[in-house]
């Protein structure tokens, strides 16, 4: 035993293992230290925090807000998450169908179990349109219907440069297909001053800090008593809704519920 140790030392390898270990760690962490450059058009790089994402400037600010509030209203009343994404053009080396599927999945449109998301993708310069339909909505919006909405509502309106009216009419048409009983909020989707924006910031912040503080305190106390923290954890943290709205989200915000897509929908152009 002792001889072995001596031998090792003689070989001058007392530093060898630690160095090897550090090298190993380094290579392991390499991707974390130098992350691969994120492509601007990479679906994962886009931030889906609203129902409408317009990077091509086809919609005016108030139009975008109105559309978002219509979609948010529809989501709240029927749980179906419809999104509108407008981009300047398709990134190279991808197809419209593949890209819109990636977008829909990155945005996590629709509720997890219901797969009831829908994504309308508009590419300004390519003059292309795609309606991506969540697996759970395929029965209600068949590919043929989606194609018809593109051909008869979106394309003619876009040809007249009427982007907002076209998108809104298409969305209302699709909403009607999904839930005929749905009636847009007063004024046909007119934007009610969203209560989220009027939510006073400071009191909310204080409330949040309060909750966090006490939940930490709570956990520590429970620890000391020897309880398992999971059973007695603060309600706020345990019940994270898988979709829908957390406690303090404004009504304009969007949070994907993780619905599934499998390539249903239709493509078109104008």
């Amino acid at each position, binding site marked *: 035993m002792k001889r072995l140790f001596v031998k090792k030392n003689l070989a001058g390898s007392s530093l060898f293992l630690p160095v090897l270990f550090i090298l190993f760690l380094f290579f392991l962490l390499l991707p974390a230290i130098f992350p691969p450059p994120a492509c601007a058009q990479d679906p994962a790089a886009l931030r889906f925090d609203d129902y409408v994402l317009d990077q091509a400037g086809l919609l005016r600010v108030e139009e975008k807000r109105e559309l978002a509030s219509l979609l948010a209203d529809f989501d709240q009343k029927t749980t179906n998450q419809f999104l509108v994404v407008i981009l300047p053009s398709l990134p190279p080396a991808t197809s419209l169908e593949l890209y819109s599927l990636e977008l829909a999945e990155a945005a996590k449109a629709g509720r997890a179990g219901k797969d009831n998301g829908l994504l309308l993708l508009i590419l300004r310069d390519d003059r292309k349109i795609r309606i991506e339909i969540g697996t759970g909505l395929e029965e209600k919006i068949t590919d*043929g*219907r*989606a*194609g018809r909405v593109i051909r008869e509502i979106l394309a003619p309106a876009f040809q007249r440069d009427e982007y907002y009216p076209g998108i809104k009419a298409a969305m209302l048409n699709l909403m009607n297909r999904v839930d005929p009983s749905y009636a847009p909020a007063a004024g046909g989707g007119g934007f009610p001053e969203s209560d989220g924006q009027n939510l006073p910031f400071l009191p909310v912040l204080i409330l949040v800090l309060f909750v966090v503080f006490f939940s930490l305190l709570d956990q520590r106390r429970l620890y000391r008593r020897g309880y398992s923290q999971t059973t007695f954890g603060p309600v706020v943290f345990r019940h994270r809704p898988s979709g829908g709205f957390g406690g303090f989200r404004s009504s304009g915000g969007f949070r994907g519920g993780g619905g599934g897509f*499998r*390539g249903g929908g239709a*493509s*078109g152009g104008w």
Partner: protein
Amino acid sequence: MQKYKGLFIVLGIVFFLVFGYVYYYNSFITLEEEINGKWAEIENNLQRRADLIPNLVATVKGYASHEEAIFTEIAQARSRLLGAQGVADKVQASAAMESALGRLLAIAEAYPELKADQRFAALQDELAGTENRLSVARLRYNEAVKAYNARIRRLPARIVAGMMGLEAKEYFQIEEAAREVPKVEF
């Protein structure tokens, strides 16, 4: 205590081996089920396409009844696809079907009245949607196969896979020739 040292070591090794076997066994089963699920999705879409075809053919016939050759070709491709067994066979039959459909749609281009038909437009959308779902299903199936194949070939999982008699699964691959089929575009 010293007396049992050997026994403990042996027991430790046995436990380690059994644990490893069970672990890999379960992971293979999970991956295999994943593949089966994705394959079922492909089959669903092949079936859906086959179901759409009679409607499509009927609509085209209403405007272009004299294009007999293409109708027979489609009918043949369809029955071949419905009768195909196994991955390789289905891949081939599916490619033949795609090429026949491509020709049918190319023919339809020559009939403005047909193109203006609402029903035909809707059927084309359905068909394009099915093709797209099929390609997505194919992609996901191939991803699942890739994960599985990589898993069973890597050591030490490979040893367990060998004991279970598992083999690499086939990809759903379309030959280059078949890929040049006129695409269903709108």
